[in-house]
């Protein structure tokens, strides 16, 4: 009896072994929680159903801070996951460890990614990541206080100051036209880009933030700050408390701002950021990169398949619909489904339009995060009226000069 069953068992074990070898497991680390998490899980499950030989270990690593720390630890140990969400300034720390995606992604998929996003995901000319959960900066406003949203810098400033009032005459302002957050210099960078300014010259050799275009922008921020609630915390709270009439913020904050408005008992609408020389708006959110470190060729192939899957028009649209982020491919933006969705949800139409008209990303300089911290320090001084724009910008430029020369 042992002979008969023994042989069958041996064959079964061998088959299992072969199956195990033909199955590929990849790790996908992310920071998507609340409603975003389930949407990602659904997509990944669909992928695994289509690809029975691939198992995707989807691991939620906490918020972005937590995810970045875990990635640091993993890369330092030489054992990063196969795929991970990452901001551009994290990517610049492990450029060497990522798979150059142009060598692996099919030309159709590459051609389909929106050119603006392609630009944002190139590092030293190589495409090392693909866009994943991308947001854009827009204007949130209360139609009861702001019947017509401002479309230019001048209109924005005038309206903000007109709406900054001391309602009960006690010397304390009860309502601010707008709000500004110093730890969120992306707003300043958006306006800087609208004024055709930049932090550094194109070749990164010179600091240009304190040139005339930078100065004009900072002067605009200083004027705006006089009619703005300046605080470090998110603006959704004071907005919901009726302290702010309109503010410029990321589209990713939409659910929180809407909830605050509902609690405050008023309607909230979304419009494009007031424009100047152009209608630029900063793109935030993370991209996906594939690590070459500690991965077998089969794992890398599986990861590439996953990425191509996520970039399919129906999937990028599904992701955008469920989460509030943007689709990332041309066919996604142009699909009937997305068109119908934006018609039913006008704020999404605004976000789409804002991105298509002027979306731009972070500077890919290796010390960008240091530059950003310097930016925040002096930006805050200007917003709080502690320093005048010119001095702040010159000090900022001097420090950035030191940073990029190291």
């Amino acid at each position, binding site marked *: 009896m042992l002979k008969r069953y023994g042989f069958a068992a041996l064959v079964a074990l061998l088959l299992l072994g072969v199956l195990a070898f033909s199955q590929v497991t990849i790790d996908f680390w992310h920071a998507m929680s609340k409603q975003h998490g389930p949407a990602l899980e659904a997509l990944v499950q669909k992928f695994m159903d289509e690809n029975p030989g691939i198992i995707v270990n989807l691991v939620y690593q906490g918020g972005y801070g937590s995810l970045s720390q875990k990635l640091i630890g993993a*890369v330092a140990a030489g054992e990063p996951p196969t795929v991970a969400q990452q901001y551009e300034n994290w990517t610049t720390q492990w450029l*060497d460890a990522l798979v150059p995606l142009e060598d692996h992604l099919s030309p159709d998929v590459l051609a389909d990614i929106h050119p603006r996003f392609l630009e944002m995901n190139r590092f030293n000319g190589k495409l090392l990541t693909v866009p994943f959960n991308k947001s854009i900066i827009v204007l949130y406003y209360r139609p009861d206080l702001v019947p017509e949203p401002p479309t230019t810098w001048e209109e924005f400033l005038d309206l903000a100051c007109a709406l900054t009032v001391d309602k009960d005459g006690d010397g304390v302002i009860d309502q601010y036209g707008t709000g500004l957050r*110093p730890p969120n210099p992306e707003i300043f960078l958006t306006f800087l880009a609208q004024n055709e300014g930049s932090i550094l010259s194109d070749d990164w050799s010179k600091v240009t933030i304190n040139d005339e275009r930078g100065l004009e922008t900072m002067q605009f921020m200083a004027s705006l700050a006089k009619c703005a609630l300046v605080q470090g915390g998110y603006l959704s709270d004071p907005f919901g408390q009726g302290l702010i009439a309109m503010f410029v913020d990321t589209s990713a904050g939409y659910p929180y701002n809407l909830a605050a408005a509902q609690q405050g008992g008023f309607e909230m609408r979304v419009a494009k950021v007031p424009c100047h020389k152009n209608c630029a708006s900063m793109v935030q959110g993370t991209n996906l990169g594939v690590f070459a470190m500690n991965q077998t060729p089969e794992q890398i192939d599986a990861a590439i398949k996953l990425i191509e899957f996520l970039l399919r028009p129906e999937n990028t649209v599904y992701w955008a619909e469920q989460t509030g982020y943007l689709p990332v491919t041309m066919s996604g933006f142009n699909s009937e489904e997305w068109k119908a969705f934006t018609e039913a949800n006008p704020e999404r139409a605004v976000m789409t339009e804002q991105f298509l008209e002027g979306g731009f990303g972070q500077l890919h300089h290796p010390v960008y995060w240091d530059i950003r911290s310097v930016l925040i320090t002096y930006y805050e001084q200007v917003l709080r009226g502690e320093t005048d724009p010119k001095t702040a910008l010159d000090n900022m430029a001097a420090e950035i000069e030191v940073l990029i020369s190291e």
Partner: protein
Amino acid sequence: MMRIPAHWRSKQYWWDTGQAYLYLLPAMLVLGVFVFYPFFNAFNLSFHKVYLVKRVGGQLIPLYMEYVGLSNFTRLFHDSIFIKAIKQTSIYVGVSVPVTIGLALILATFLNEGLRLRPFYRLAYFMPYITPVVAISLVWQWIYNWKFGLLNYLLGFFGVDLINWLNDPRFALPAVIIMNVWRFVGYQSIILLAGMQGIDKMYYDAAKVDGASGIQAWWKITVPLLTPQLFFVFIISLIGSFKIFEEIYILFGTTPGPLNSAMTMVYYIFDQGFQRFHFGRAAAASVVLFAIIFTLTLFQMTVTQRRVHYER
């Protein structure tokens, strides 16, 4: 030739000693991995520029280190934010440590009076110490709210104008101090109370016979005999408060306060290392922090050693 000590010859000695080390082994392993190794590694890191990963000759090398001598340290002292961190940490320590101990001493004295419901008071004052820092900071975020917070509401009864605790650079550090004094007073008072209850009643009886008043008894008997506990509380509170970070990180919503007014040394280390990826610089900052705390603790121990009365 050196004479081998007699007890080294006994088998029993080696057996006993070996056993002792075996019992110590688990703790030594844990300490070794989580305390000693990071400690020496940090020293090493502080003299290098660290690349998280670098491709060197076709190989991907994680934690590629490049020796840079003292440049991390010189860079530190040219960073105005680091200097600010040292200054602000010192202010925080200089205010919160004496204030907490002072209040804890007063509180312990009252608790020692044998009030009714003493167990309740002990629990009430100890609770903040055992509550997770994150929870405390989140609640205090609301207590400190400018327009709707509890603290401003109560201060309003005394005619105090609205203070923007979390958004005004002048009040950021005070806000942190108040919250932490509240948090640690209970814990320290329990320790001091335990010390007080260990003081022999005969001293008080003798004092009464000599006609001493309550205050005199407190100052001449209680406090001097409490010095071992006071010393202990002083040292751990000093060392602990130099390391303040989490409260600030959460209270100010992952920022070091308005205009960096709540930037502390550990926050600086965290920011440099885990947000800006400058591991060498962060290590150098932690070495500086260690040097400061070590020097202060040495100083403290030698100066106060003479004034501490240990019961024999």
